[in-house]
């Protein structure tokens, strides 16, 4: 009963370092999303994917990259970490069928860039 799994749960990076946030879902959902949540704010969409091999930018894509080589996995890459990327990151997935468009979220990754 895993659902959406994100790793790691916490990470501290130095400015300029790079890292990959992992996201895996076992529900065979076509749609996957990456959000960031800054303190006191709602979630903002970074990137999303409508299926393996297809990705597109959301509201705040700068400084991030994604790939979707399989239905299950949707990793988010930070190439040159900056303090502005300190945030909590959420991955979500959703089935494509109309009427079943609820997004299922992972537990989040808290990232600090110092």
């Amino acid at each position, binding site marked *: 009963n895993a659902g959406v799994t994100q790793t790691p749960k916490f990470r501290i990076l130095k400015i300029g370092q790079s890292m990959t946030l992992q996201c895996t879902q076992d529900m065979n959902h076509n749609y996957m999303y990456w959000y960031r949540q800054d303190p006191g704010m*709602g*979630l903002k969409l970074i990137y999303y994917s409508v299926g393996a091999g297809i990705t597109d930018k959301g509201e705040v894509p700068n400084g991030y990259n994604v790939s979707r080589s399989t239905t299950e996995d949707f990793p988010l890459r930070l190439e040159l970490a900056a303090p502005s990327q300190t945030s909590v990151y959420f991955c979500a997935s959703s089935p494509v069928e109309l009427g079943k468009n609820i*997004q299922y979220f992972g*537990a989040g990754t808290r990232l600090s860039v110092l």
Partner: protein
Amino acid sequence: AQTVTQSQPEMSVQEAETVTLSCTYDTSENNYYLFWYKQPPSRQMILVIRQEAYKQQNATENRFSVNFQKAAKSFSLKISDSQLGDTAMYFCAFMKFSGTYKYIFGTGTRLKVLA
């Protein structure tokens, strides 16, 4: 572009009482979905309730119900018989009926249930 506004940053309610959280949105779409999500201190986002805009009947899920006013673009959440476990951030979200199923989130309302 769609926007979602939650004008109450924080609210509190006594245990067993009723509280209403407000949400307004702006869109030119006619068909869309609206959601309330709960985010407890554990950070896990949990769906509370969903409303399809083409349905006139307000959605209900146990102690949770909505007041959906399409003309006024208002979508409030009522929590009856509040419980300590209802303490959380509550986010209102909008999704277009078709396309890429992207959510637009409000900034959230922090609800504290008092014993």
